[in-house]
């Protein structure tokens, strides 16, 4: 095989998209009457928008060889906080900001705790905040859902644009546009800015980053802030879609986010992965669930299959990397 760094980088980036297309073809063949309807496709995008945001945040953390277990709880805390604020009658622009702000605060706590306390691994710090944020979520709500949000607050989670061609309730969801904006912004940040490249460098060799004059601790705090921000934004979307803040939201969602990132080809050991891969990973999980749903497969089997896919995806990656080395 002729080795070309450009070709190998291209495959590493875009090979996963072929998998998504293949899945869509298979599901479309199994249920052509249901899968390709605009309504079903709209649903897939809407249902996975929150997961996509969480996965994007988780991805940045995993690139540094870290992990953020707190994102599910952070999302729930953001969601109930903004729901309470909305019910309390705060102006809607303030309510919109509250979700992401709560996320950023949890992210700062994670980042600062990790770097100042010199905890041995981010697993520990974020396992702590997973529980703390969830506990706070129950405390502020007394464990009961808070529903009835202002229409402006619901907008991002609920709105869709039929563009005059789709029959309601189908169309381009506003949440998809938000995800796209976040993904493009994150891609630009990671690929084109010095701080973005330092995030990859920290994942590859933190000592190399340090001796090159990169303030590793500061970058790590920023990374957990980004993850928290994305979780907060995800909370805003979910609150809008469900018109409520419910304290049980997002339990275990951090594991889905990790799974999407790993399926999308990012290395669990840091330094490797792409934004487009993460989105593909989210879509693969979403399509798998949808494909099984519309074929009336029990949700218990879905868990079994998703577990198998995670293992399979990483195994494919191992094989591909071995082939790339033996050029």
């Amino acid at each position, binding site marked *: 095989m002729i080795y070309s760094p450009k070709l190998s980088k291209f495959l590493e980036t875009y090979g996963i998209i072929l998998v998504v297309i293949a899945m869509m073809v298979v599901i479309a063949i199994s249920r052509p009457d249901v899968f390709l309807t605009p309504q079903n496709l709209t649903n897939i995008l809407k249902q996975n928008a929150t997961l996509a945001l969480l996965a994007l945040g988780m991805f940045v953390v995993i690139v540094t060889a870290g992990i953020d277990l707190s994102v599910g709880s952070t999302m729930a805390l953001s969601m109930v906080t903004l729901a309470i604020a909305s019910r309390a009658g705060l102006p809607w622009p303030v309510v919109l900001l509250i979700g992401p702000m709560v996320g950023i605060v949890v992210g700062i706590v994670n980042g600062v705790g990790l770097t100042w306390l010199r905890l041995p691994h981010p697993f520990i710090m974020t396992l702590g905040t997973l529980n703390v944020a969830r506990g706070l979520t129950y405390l502020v709500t007394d464990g009961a859902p808070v529903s009835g949000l202002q229409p402006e607050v619901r907008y991002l989670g609920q709105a869709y644009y039929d563009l005059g061609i789709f029959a309601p309730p189908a169309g381009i969801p506003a949440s998809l546009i938000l995800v796209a904006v976040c993904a493009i912004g994150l891609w630009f940040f990671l690929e084109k800015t*010095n701080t973005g490249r330092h995030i990859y460098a920290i994942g590859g060799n933190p000592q190399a980053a340090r001796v090159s004059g990169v303030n590793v601790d500061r970058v790590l705090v920023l990374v957990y802030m980004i993850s928290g921000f994305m979780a907060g934004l995800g909370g805003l979307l979910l609150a809008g879609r469900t018109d409520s803040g419910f304290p049980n939201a997002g339990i275990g969602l951090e594991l889905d986010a990790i799974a999407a990132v790993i399926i999308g080809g990012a290395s669990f050991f840091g330094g490797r992965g792409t934004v487009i891969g993460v989105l593909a990973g989210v879509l693969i999980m979403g399509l798998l669930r949808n494909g099984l749903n519309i074929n009336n497969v029990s949700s218990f089997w879905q868990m079994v299959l998703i577990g198998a896919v995670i293992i399979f995806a990483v195994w494919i990656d191992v094989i591909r990397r071995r082939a790339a080395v033996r050029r």
Partner: protein
Amino acid sequence: MVQSDTPLLEARGIAKYFGAITALHDVNFHVGHGEVLGVVGDNGAGKSTLMKILSGLYQPSEGELILDGKPAKFSSPKDARAAGIEMVYQDFALAGNMAIYENIYMGREPGRKFGPLTIIDHKKAREMAQNHLDNLHIHVKSVDQNTEDLSGGQRQAVAIARATAFHAQLVIMDEPTAALAIKEVGKVLDLIKRLKDHGVAVIIISHRMDDIFYCCDRVMALYQGTNFAESGLAETSRNEVIGWIMGTKGHTASLAHDRLN
């Protein structure tokens, strides 16, 4: 080669204490413009502590550094780099998951600056890296190759290229050949000689007498935290230098070492 009367860097009475432990005391030495100085010493003699002081990682407890005739204080590796002092680490300190050109300009990326953020000009960085590598006669397939795909010698060459990418005056190398395959050692040593031709001063810390005697102008020995002996390379021999490492002066053929032959 640039030569002048004032040495490039001079250390006067450097001491470093870690609590009750004295790592260095009363260390004095100098290195001239474009000079290659070898630093030898046994484990624990204080070589790495001294190099960490020179590169700004540690601050001396006593004594001062004089750079180009002016007192210099480095409170971080960034300060030392700004003054033209660079470090090449034994393990290369490269990010294997990143391209050669990105490693070379890590932390000093070319591009447009917006506050703390730089929008990197990747095209310019590639060109700069290619030109710089050509200047040093370092050959790689492509500057887009990840450094993990390189051999040890190529990695060391990239690490040296990074150290000299921005007008370095002095490059400090910690055991530059320790992690290399034997066939690659010569290439790296030739590269060190080439730096000297570009007017860059080099301090080499090494255990390998072959390295020292191949490319140094002068050699200095540390023993138990202080400078024990030094000499121009022409005025000394391997045996004498090995004696210095073990804290003895004037030993030559009587060393047990030699009788093993």
